[in-house]
């Protein structure tokens, strides 16, 4: 019998059964009755034995690396996979930027207005959109933004999440609006964060005029100030515990924030679970962490706070009080 004939002759259901046996026998719980039942199944039909040979061929691939180097091998393969997945996320981000640059060319070439462009980012992802007049817009993770460029200004409708807007030197004014307010910058760099019930503005440079949608009082927010707006009201906030816009530089810049708030932000930049014991959530944290290296961030927390990292797997990390 040639190899290919042999490969074609095993029914799918028999293969499935063979792999179920492989799972059962390797569960660590199989008993004598299981083994007898398996032997009986194996002897019942020559096709069963052929299917079992396939199982063995798969198992053989793992046998060489099992044993002493097995744990390191697993870590290496999972690390590699996480890195690839992260890279794929980044690649999606740059495709969006390219799309917008092409939209800019259409506008310049024909004088026609391009339609509205929608951008969205995933958890832990970020994206930079550069308009043709050098206006730059950074999108934080979990953000949705529509951009429509008109001759006199850009219209930015923020539907979810957070953006950082940096206006170009001779750029058209980017007018940002959310369900609550409109923001008109006067040569500036600023962050707008939209949540269901409120919008927050942080001005990094220059001045932003803030107009509540329902016709509340118009305000001018200056560099260093933070404002919270609802549809009919706006109020000035105290200094932030997380420096606004630090994420655009890939940083988490924290001043006297709660540990549970810090962990929640770090978790968005990891694949897997990051949990903590309840009684350490209120510990206070100050520092600057790199969002693309949360391992180092966690080790820094372990060094500076009375906590230790419990690592069940690379996917599942828990912070516990360090009573040692």
């Amino acid at each position, binding site marked *: 019998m040639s190899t290919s004939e042999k490969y074609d002759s095993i029914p799918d259901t028999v293969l499935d059964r063979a792999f179920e046996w492989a*799972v059962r026998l390797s569960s660590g719980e199989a008993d004598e009755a299981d083994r007898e039942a398996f032997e009986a199944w194996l002897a019942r039909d020559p096709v069963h034995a052929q299917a079992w040979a396939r*199982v063995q061929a798969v198992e053989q691939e793992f046998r060489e690396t099992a044993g002493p180097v097995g744990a390191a091998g697993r870590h290496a393969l999972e690390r590699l996979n996480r890195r690839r997945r992260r890279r794929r996320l980044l690649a999606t981000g740059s495709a969006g930027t390219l799309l917008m640059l092409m939209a800019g060319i259409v506008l310049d070439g024909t004088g026609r207005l391009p339609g509205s462009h929608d951008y969205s980012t995933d958890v832990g992802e970020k994206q930079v959109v550069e308009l043709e007049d050098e206006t730059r817009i950074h999108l934080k993770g979990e953000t949705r933004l529509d951009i429509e460029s008109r001759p006199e200004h850009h219209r930015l409708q923020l539907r979810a999440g957070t953006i950082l807007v940096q206006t170009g030197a001779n750029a058209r004014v980017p007018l940002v609006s959310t369900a609550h307010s409109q923001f008109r910058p006067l040569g500036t760099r600023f962050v707008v964060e939209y949540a269901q019930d409120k919008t927050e503005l942080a001005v990094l440079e220059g001045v932003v005029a803030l107009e509540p949608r329902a016709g509340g009082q118009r305000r001018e927010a200056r560099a260093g100030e933070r404002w919270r707006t609802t549809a009919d009201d706006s109020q000035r906030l105290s200094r932030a515990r997380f420096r606004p816009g630090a994420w655009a530089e890939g940083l988490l810049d924290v001043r006297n924030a709660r540990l549970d708030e810090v962990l929640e932000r770090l978790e968005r930049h990891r694949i897997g679970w990051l949990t903590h014991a309840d009684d350490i959530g209120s510990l206070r944290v100050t520092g600057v962490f790199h969002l693309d290296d949360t391992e180092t961030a966690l080790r820094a927390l372990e060094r500076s706070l009375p906590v230790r990292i419990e690592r069940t797997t690379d996917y599942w990390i828990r912070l516990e009080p360090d009573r040692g």
Partner: protein
Amino acid sequence: MDYPASIRLQGLYREHRDWLRRVIFRRTGCPEKAADLTQDVFLRLLSRDATPHLKEPRAYLARIAHGLMVDDWRRRDLEQAWRESVEGLSEQEAPSPEDRVSVMDALARIDALLEGLKPRARHVLLCSRLEGKGHACIARELGVSLSTVEKDMALALRHCHDVLID
């Protein structure tokens, strides 16, 4: 290889070698790697039974080169991940340099088998087959039910089988 095919290959080599080396150099940024991989592309052609008549030989060569570069990147990523994973292992635990090559080969084969598998099934299979952990232990660590782990295991083994047989 028949006589005309080998003549064709020589022609390809003379005409496109320098161009191909430049293409690979632009992608890798490394002159030695570009020279090596250019040689590998033509070696790959030499080992085939026949050199096809080509309308667009450069597209064909670039496609082979791309495949080799991807293999090369994958291997380098894998080696780096392995180095990071054995950091801190004692001398007894870490594999000897002679074993290293065969371990890397085996890991590369496993990596190829697991391509496209969802992360949890990948994790479950590796815990079981490389570390010898029992299903109950894996379920506890992940915080999922035993039957979820067993479903993942069956899915993962079947995935490997399909890739291996394909």
